């Protein structure tokens, strides 16, 4: 796992390595073990290395036998041993033991189509010197980041935006459409990023630049063409377990020790149990506990530790810890966030790094693939109710939602029903997500009149509609909900702000068996009732994992990972200190100067939060979104990132 960067001179002028070198330096946290630079004609490639596979021989940028191809690669190709054997059988000769070299030889063999054979998580650039052609690719789901921009003369790319910002021609002007998207969907819609001039290669896409111009091409997207059921439930569960076992097995390929995250929930318990089953022996696990019982899951974490006999290390996160690290977290997320949840994971990756580990397996992706999130249950109850709108009994099921949210549970029935009745009918594109998105959209009341004016002609929902796959409207509501979660929130928030960015801030690589594309394809082909059976989430996964994990964990209902929110920033820590940046960044003059928000609205929000009246989800999101936006502007303006 590493950081990559590079520049291609579009006019063919010889490249120099100075700027690329500075870009690599900006990525040192991703790859502290080594750095590399190669200049070839119009192209400069750079690499910051976190050595995991072929520690001695995997130096990058790497070339092929005749030096006609050069690659800089961030990620892992988990099926590299199988691919290597096939390539060797076809006459390819390898100089190293690394997975990087496998990509090069596969590209020689198959060109741009090589990506179809890869099982892994990647962002790479291949400079094809003979054809004067640069090929960039990003993995199917969007585990690894890849940003780029065109200046007047160059294509500039990197793993993180802060590296692009080393280029003097890259502006940090905020993309207001992306801001609108984040303040609706919690994530920007790729290729948008929060900066107008910076784009990302979307998940499942490649970008090719040569003398004829540049082309962005989709090679994969999640599809929910449910196959007619041919397997029994038992056979489906067996098939799933076999796939997950193999996905975990190949994700243990590493020349350094591999650890695991434990949340106390089903998913990470399953991946950890599978690791123990495949490679019984010493296993280090890591988890976050919270001082506040409302968020803490350490009881369940300890059950798994005892059951699987792992060597466990835990960090306890306080409200003060979140406030303290939040500015650094935003420096790494490089986008506003509506939740503080990335902060404890930032602390966790620091713990992993300090424990001498570089790689962890986690349970990420199971909720999207197997219907674990409450949003699926919520939509199911709403759809059930919509079929008989006059029913008195059906809306009573709404009380089954969000059992861990006290404020929702104490809501009067009529209001609970009023809130969840939001949105058009079940057949509408965004039926499943309408309540969440409409609630989040209220945060835009915080925008300054200038920003509201600039966004007046922009319809964020129409923009999303224009990007949906053909036939989307004909899918059932469950498939549509899964697609929206998998294509927007997963890459744009879960795998980035809560994933790559906070893990790689401390040079820790996450690996995700549930996001193996074979598991993803299998899950997508399953009928919805095998995922959400009545209101039992991840039904098939629970069946497949029965016996692997403690009964207490298997039986418990889903509790999403959450962290304390707005109160962290206005409550003194144990030493009586308040974070000093909050007042400074939310001061009326500063808010007016930065121009995104209305100073009066921010003042009202801050006063309400200070008074301890920021109790609802929307107010908490508003505070975190506003503060993180102000922090982002500050970090990128002040330090040059």
């Amino acid at each position, binding site marked *: 796992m590493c950081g990559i960067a590079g520049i291609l001179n579009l006019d063919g002028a010889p490249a120099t390595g100075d700027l690329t070198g500075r870009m690599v330096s900006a990525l040192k946290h991703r790859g502290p073990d080594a750095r590399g630079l190669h200049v070839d004609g119009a192209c400069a490639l750079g690499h910051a290395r976190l050595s995991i596979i072929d520690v001695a021989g995997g130096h990058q940028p790497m070339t092929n036998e005749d030096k006609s191809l050069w690659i800089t690669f961030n990620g892992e190709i988990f099926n590299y041993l199988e691919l290597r054997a096939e390539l060797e059988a076809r006459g390819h000769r390898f100089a190293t033991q690394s997975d990087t070299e496998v990509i090069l030889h596969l590209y020689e063999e198959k060109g741009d189509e090589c990506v179809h054979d890869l099982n892994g998580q990647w962002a790479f650039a291949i400079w094809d010197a003979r054809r004067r052609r640069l090929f960039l690719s990003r993995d199917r789901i969007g585990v690894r980041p890849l940003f780029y921009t065109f200046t007047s003369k160059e294509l500039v790319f990197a793993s993180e935006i802060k590296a692009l910002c080393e280029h003097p021609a890259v502006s940090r002007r905020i993309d207001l459409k992306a801001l609108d998207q984040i303040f609706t969907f919690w994530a920007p819609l790729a290729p948008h990023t929060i900066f107008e001039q910076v784009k990302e290669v979307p998940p499942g896409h490649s970008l090719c630049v040569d003398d004829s111009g540049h082309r962005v091409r989709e090679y994969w997207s999640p599809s929910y063409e449910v196959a007619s059921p041919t397997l029994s439930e038992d056979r489906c569960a067996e098939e799933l377990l076999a796939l997950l076992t193999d996905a975990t097995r190949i994700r243990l390929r590493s020349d350094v020790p591999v650890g695991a995250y434990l949340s106390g929930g089903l998913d990470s318990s399953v991946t950890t149990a599978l690791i123990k089953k495949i490679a019984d022996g010493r296993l280090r696990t890591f988890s976050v506990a919270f001082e506040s019982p409302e968020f803490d899951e350490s009881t369940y974490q300890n059950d798994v530790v005892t059951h699987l006999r792992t060597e466990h290390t835990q960090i306890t996160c306080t409200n003060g810890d979140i406030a303290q690290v939040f500015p650094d977290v935003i420096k790494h997320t490089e986008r506003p966030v509506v939740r503080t949840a990335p902060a404890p994971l930032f602390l966790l990756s620091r713990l992993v790094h300090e424990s001498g580990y570089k790689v962890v397996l986690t349970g990420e992706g199971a909720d999207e693939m197997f219907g674990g999130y409450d949003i699926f249950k919520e939509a199911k109850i709403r759809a059930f109710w919509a079929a008989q709108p006059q029913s008195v009994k059906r809306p009573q099921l709404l009380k089954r939602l969000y059992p861990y949210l006290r*404020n*929702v549970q*104490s*809501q*009067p029935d*009529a*209001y*609970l029903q*009023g*809130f*969840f*009745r*939001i949105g058009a009918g079940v057949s509408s594109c965004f039926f499943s997500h309408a309540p969440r998105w*409409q*609630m989040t*959209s*209220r945060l835009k*009341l*915080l925008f300054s009149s200038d920003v509201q004016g600039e966004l007046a002609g922009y319809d964020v929902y129409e923009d999303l509609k224009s990007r949906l796959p053909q036939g989307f409207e004909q899918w059932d509501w469950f498939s549509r909900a899964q697609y929206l979660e998998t294509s927007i929130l997963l890459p744009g928030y879960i795998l980035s702000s809560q994933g790559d960015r906070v893990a790689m801030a401390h040079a820790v690589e996450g690996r995700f068996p549930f996001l193996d594309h074979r598991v993803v394809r299998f899950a997508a082909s399953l009928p919805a009732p095998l995922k959400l059976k009545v209101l039992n989430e991840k039904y098939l996964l629970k069946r497949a994992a029965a016996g692997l994990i403690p009964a207490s964990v298997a039986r418990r209902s889903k509790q999403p990972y959450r962290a304390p929110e707005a109160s962290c920033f206005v409550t003194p820590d144990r030493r009586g200190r308040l974070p000093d940046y909050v007042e400074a960044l939310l001061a009326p003059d500063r808010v007016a100067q930065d121009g995104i928000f*209305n100073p*009066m*609205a*921010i*003042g*009202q*929000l801050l006063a*309400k939060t200070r008074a301890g*009246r920021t*109790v*609802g*989800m*929307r107010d908490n999101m*508003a505070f975190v979104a506003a503060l993180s936006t102000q922090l982002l502007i500050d970090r990128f303006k002040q330090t040059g990132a």
Partner: protein
Amino acid sequence: MDFSVNDDVRAFVIQNFMFGQGAQLTDDESFLEAGIIDSTGVLELVGFLETKFGIVVADDDLVPANLDSVVRVARFVERKMKERSRIAG
């Protein structure tokens, strides 16, 4: 209708649920349909009414017919205040 109740309710809703940005709010606009009150907001509204106007909001009162717009809330508060006066008198 007592305009001071109306104004107080309106001011609370704008300040508390709309970050002070409520110039466009009409008195008969539905809080739920417009997304002004989220899934927990009505509890805040009830707390305000009980503290500010000294009324008691019973469980049966917690319905949109009483609490879903500025004008409905104002009428509800006035009715409750009258009931209280009758009992006290």
